[in-house]
């Protein structure tokens, strides 16, 4: 009986991932076909190529694309990981020192309010326009969602559950491990999912400050040589990487957070 229950539970949670991928794939296909048709009918400006034109340049660009993408990915991933460490450390301080929570969140909001595009040139002056800038800007872009997710997540324990742990005479560490951490997981995953595309975007913007390697640099080169299909090829690659990063985290989440949660809407 319970076996059947558990099986049906698994079926609904992670099952049917084909069903999750198929609808967006069909939409993309439809949009692609529509653009192809509109281009053929002469309805689109010269800045928008037909999907077939983009596909045609892809094989010749593949090696370049991969070389540039590696750098962007590395900067974004490094910034993301460092940002997560800083955000979680600060969240830990905010949660253990009640007085620190407001100032820390305020700093987070302030950082989040400054447009990345305005921050990038300032940091470019300090750290140069190389890979370091990519890491820094990627980290800043991802910072606030990670901080907020961690702080909110660790505060998301049910009041009755806290009383239960008190009655059971649980230690601080047991509360953290057995209650706060699992309660926080859905929030933390939501934050990681939101932050991943942001740090990729941050790394990209940093590359516009004048580096010679990275997908951002590739876009600039293609723009200056007015190679419209390559511009779009690069943009589509960035989109694909973003979606892939989001999907990967969602996949891990579905393996870890196997219970139904209220926080799912956050993702």
């Amino acid at each position, binding site marked *: 009986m319970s076996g059947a229950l*558990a099986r049906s539970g698994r079926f609904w949670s992670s099952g049917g991932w084909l069903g999750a991928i198929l609808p967006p794939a069909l939409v993309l296909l439809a949009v692609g076909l529509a653009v192809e048709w509109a281009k053929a009918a002469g309805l689109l400006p010269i800045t928008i190529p037909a999907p077939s034109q983009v596909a045609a340049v892809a094989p010749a660009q593949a090696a370049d694309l991969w070389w540039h993408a590696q750098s962007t990915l590395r900067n974004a991933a490094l910034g993301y990981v460092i940002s997560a460490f800083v955000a979680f450390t600060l969240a830990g301080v905010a949660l253990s020192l009640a007085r620190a929570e407001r100032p820390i969140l305020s700093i987070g909001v302030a950082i989040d309010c400054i447009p990345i595009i305005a921050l990038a040139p300032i940091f470019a002056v300090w750290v140069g326009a190389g890979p370091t800038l990519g890491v820094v800007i990627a980290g800043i872009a991802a910072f606030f969602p990670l901080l907020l997710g961690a702080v909110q997540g660790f505060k998301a324990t049910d009041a009755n559950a806290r009383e239960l742990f008190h*009655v059971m*005479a649980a230690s601080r560490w047991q509360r953290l491990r*057995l*209650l706060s951490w*699992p309660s926080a997981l859905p929030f933390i995953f939501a934050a990681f999912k939101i932050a991943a595309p942001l740090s990729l975007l941050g790394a990209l913007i940093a590359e516009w400050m004048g580096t010679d390697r990275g997908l951002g640099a590739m876009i600039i080169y293609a723009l200056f040589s007015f190679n419209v299909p390559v511009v779009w090829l690069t943009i589509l690659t960035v989109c694909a990487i973003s979606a892939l990063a989001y999907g990967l985290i969602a996949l891990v989440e579905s393996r870890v957070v196997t*219970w139904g*949660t209220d926080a799912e809407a956050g993702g």
Partner: protein
Amino acid sequence: MTGIVIEDVSKSFTIGKGSVQALSDITVTLPPGSFTALIGPSGCGKSTLLRLIADVLPPTSGTIRIGDKTPDTARRAHEIGFVFQDATLLPWRNVLQNIRLPAEVAGIPAVRDPRYLIDLVGLKGFEEARPSQLSGGMQQRVAIARALSLDPKVLLMDEPFGALDEITRQRMNMELLRIWKETGTTAVLVTHSIAEAVFMADTVLVLAARPGRIAQSIAIDLPRPRTLAMMRDPAFNGFENAVRAALFGDEVEAA
């Protein structure tokens, strides 16, 4: 078996600049192994009284003893089982893991075999189920099994079946009495139902509000084991009327 002695206990909460007296001068003794029902209008301090006994909150004045221990010592010795109005199960743990939680936290082997407890509350076959796969009544039974897992000397229940339908509730009450009998724990049940209070308890404590105090203590002199048939007994109705009179005072005649 362990009794609960409550002496001159008062509790006030500070809200902003003011303060609310939730409980005033509660003095009552709950004998070892007894079953006590707490009934009263909402806001009269029933939950607060349970929280004081469980050492979730300290009293403003007065003393509480659980056997020869303070509530704090009894809590740390894992002698208190608490059942909340909603089951408060950890959603990421299955039934068996939820029932094992108190033993895991205490760092000792479960005093009562979790599988025996699952059997006791009628959930055999659901060991691996997650709380979200259970009905409200089943979740509440898991919560009771969890509260019993370290064989607590006192079992405190705050409207545990409040959210259940009448039929399930009646069934749960019968099971609860059977479990109580089997474990010999000193039970305190907060309820909104006069019939439930009379059916379950040795003593019904009727609380009055503002400030929360014991209006009357009514001994329920019905034989055990209690059966559903007893509810049609004139003696049962007599006790119900006594509780009703204590709850509503003059309003009963006025209406």
